[in-house]
Structure formats: C-alpha cells, structure tokens
C-alpha cells in the first residue's frame, strides 16, 4: 500500500509543483466554456439550454489535453522501465497514476464549474446536477485516458493519437453525463442516466489499469 501512496504522492507533487499543468488545464476548461457564447451568441435562453453540454465538452477536452503527461515523461526518462522491475505491481502504479490524473485534471474543473455555470446562464439546480454528473463521469474519462496514454507511450508521436483513440470510447460517458443533467427525458430518465454513468465509471476504473499495464509492458518489451 505504501508504494501505491508513494506513486500517488509523487504524481500529485509533480503536478502541483512549478511545471505542473493543473492551472493550465483549469484555464483551458474555463476558456473553452467561455468562448462558446462568442460563437453561438449571448442569447441566455439558448446558452442555458446547451450549458450542460458545453461544460461536459470543456471537461472532456481538457482531460484529453492532460493525457500526455501521464506516462510519456516516465517513458522518456527511463522511470517506466524501473516501474516494471519494482516490487509494486505495474497495475498498482497505473491505478495510482489514473487516480492522480483525476485529482489533478478533473477535480479542479469540477471546483471551477460554478464559474462557468455563471457565464452560461445555468440555474442553481442544473449546476448541482452538473457537479454530481461530473463527479460520477470524469473517473471514466480518466480511466479511458489511462488506456489511451498507455497504448501510445511506446509510439514516437503518440501524443496526438491518444485523444482520437479514446474519444469514441468516451461517447457513452458524454451521453449519460449530459443525459443525467438535462431533464429532457423527465426525472426518471435523468436518474437512469446517472446510474449508467456511475456504472460506467466503476467498470472503467476497474478494468483500465490492467489493460494499461499490459499495454505498457508489451510496448516496452
């Protein structure tokens, strides 16, 4: 367990220290959300209707942006090979990294989402539902992101490929994420979507460390 916490602490330390991109990802999230009114016009009724979608797309894009720093720096400086020789199984290392990625990429977004909700004329109740759906959905994005990063760590220019690889896999997360917020299908549909979202996140978190660890092992082999 101590090894697991050590990886978690190290990842958080690296992300929060100077060069870490927690702030840049946060800024990217707010900017993507804020530029939409410039594109679709400041009509509040329209903005309020599409606000949940915008918040989710912004969260989705900024988590994809932060993917490259998950395994690539370790791959480049040789740490990844040493992880394969460590006492701590590679699956635990990957799990710790995925959780750290969620803490440094998703949590700040959720904390900043009220600000974006203000910009997009989202009412209080929807904001609450958005925060809950983000909390339930972003772990799945982090897990699939882990697989995308692990699969492309052994490639030269993998950085660009990971997002397009996992975007199709994240379509259900987006669908249920936004479905859980907007009352389009009525309250029972929204709660059904919330449950699907939670199930998806649990499944993704449970499976992705194994797939990612295998991909790293055989990518480096």
């Amino acid at each position, binding site marked *: 367990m101590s090894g697991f916490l050590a990886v978690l602490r190290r990842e958080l330390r690296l992300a929060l220290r100077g060069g870490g991109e927690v702030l840049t990802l946060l800024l990217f999230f707010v900017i993507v959300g804020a530029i939409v009114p410039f594109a679709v016009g400041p009509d509040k009724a329209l903005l309020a209707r599409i606000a949940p979608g915008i918040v989710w797309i912004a969260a989705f894009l900024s988590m994809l942006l932060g993917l490259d720093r998950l395994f690539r720096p370790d791959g480049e400086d040789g740490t990844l090979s040493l992880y394969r020789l460590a006492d701590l199984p590679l699956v635990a290392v990957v799990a710790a990294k995925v959780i750290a990625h969620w803490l440094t990429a998703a949590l700040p977004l959720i904390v900043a989402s009220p600000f974006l909700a203000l910009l997009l004329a989202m009412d209080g109740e929807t904001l609450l539902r958005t925060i809950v759906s983000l909390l339930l959905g972003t772990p799945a994005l982090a897990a699939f992101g882990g*697989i995308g990063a692990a*699969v*492309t760590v*052994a*490639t*030269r*220019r*993998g950085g660009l*490929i990971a997002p*397009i*690889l996992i*975007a*199709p*896999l994240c*379509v*259900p997360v987006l*669908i*249920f994420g936004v*479905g859980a917020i907007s009352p*389009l*299908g009525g309250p029972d*549909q929204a709660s059904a*979507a919330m449950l*699907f979202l939670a199930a*998806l996140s649990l499944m993704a978190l449970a*499976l992705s460390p194994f*797939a990612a660890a*295998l*991909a790293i092992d*055989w*990518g480096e*082999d």
Partner: protein
Amino acid sequence: MSIETSPKQSWWNRLAHPGQFVIWTRPFILPLAILTAVLLALGVWFAFFNSPADYQMGDTVRIMYVHVPTAWLSQFVYATMAVSALGTLVWRHPMADVSMKAAAPLGAAFTAMALFTGALWGRPTWGTFWEWDGRMTSTLVMLFIYLGIVALWRAFDDQLRAARVVAIFTLVGAVNIPIIKFSVDWWSTLHQPSSVFRADGPTMPGSILTPLFIMFFAFTFLFATLQLLAMHTEVKRRRVMTLERRAARGEAA
C-alpha cells in the same frame, strides 16, 4: 528464422509460420476472386432487374442490397480483428498480428461505405442525408474507432511490438462497442421519440431476400479475398523491412 522440421507439423502451427501461410493460402485467392465477381454480378442483376419495388419503400429498397452487406461487414470485420487480437495476445500466433493489421483498413472502408449508402438511403426516406438515428450514429462511432486503430498501427515503428499493443486496444474497443451501441440507442430514443422505420425486419418477402442474400455473400467473400491478399502483402512487407534493416547494418542476409 529457420524452420524446425519437426516430423508432424499440425495444421495449426503449420499455418502459424508466415512463409508457410502464404504458400498454403495462395491457391485460394483466384477461385475466391472469381466467386466474388460472379456473385456481385448476379447480385446486381437481381437487385435491378429481377426484384420488385418494396410496397412501402418503393424502389429505394434497392439501396438496401448494398447498405445491409456493408453495415454487416463493418461489424464482422471488427469481430475478425477482435479474434485475431485474442490470437495475438493468448497464443502469440504470428499470423494473428498480420490478419489484425490487414483487416483494419478494410473495416474502415466498409464502414465508410455503410455510412455513404445509409445517407443515400436516408435522403428519400427521412428527407436529409444525415439523421442522428441510433444505428447510423453507432456506425459513425465505429468508423472513428477503425480510423483510430489504423492511426495507431502507423504510429509504431516496430510492427511486432505494435501488434500486441494494438491487440489490447482492439479488445478494449470490442468491450466498449456494445456499451456505445446501447448508449447511442438510449440517446437517440431520448431525443427523437419517433422510432425509425425498421427496414430489415424478417417480414421481407422472398423476392427481396434473394438479392440481399446474394449481395451479402458477395461482399463477405470479397472481404475474405482482400483480407488474404492484404495478409500476404503484410508478410512480404515484414520480410522487406527485415532485409532492409539487415542490409542497413551491412550484414549478409
């Protein structure tokens, strides 16, 4: 790679050796190609000249004769890739890598055709070329997965190492495809309660089924032929890469 001439090479591992695979399967290509051509010609003739217009869809049912086979192939090719991925991961079967790599672009092409024909079928039926209907949308997502896999293959320099990593992603994709289909269907019923006219219901009269079956087998055999050809090319391409790398290192082959 010298062959170990073990006395009894079982059918399975004789096929495993790339060189052997090429020799064993080459005689199949020509007959398969001829069979495909015949079936295609027959299918088209049936589609246009020997089948009535559908009582509901009118003549546009003829587009179905190409749309259904390509849509079926977009699923079937992914299934072959997933089985090959298992072959790569579980049995380390060298030909599994080759078949997985050969199938990806074919799958992408057939899925694109399915979308193209679906759009053309949709124009007279729904009035627009693109309708966010459940099946069409999941076919679109399938196309993105195929293109992602093709891009992943090309991102690796060493194709042997790439095979197992792509196999893992293919299996992850395979696990997620049913989930994507389910979520897209749920999403499409949420936004457009009107259920779309289900064309390929079992209630199709015999006269429409015959061209459909002929085209179905024609396209499936076409995929088999192209897959075999592409696998042979892939085996030769790996041979070329080895020879080039060996020549670059200034060694006798």
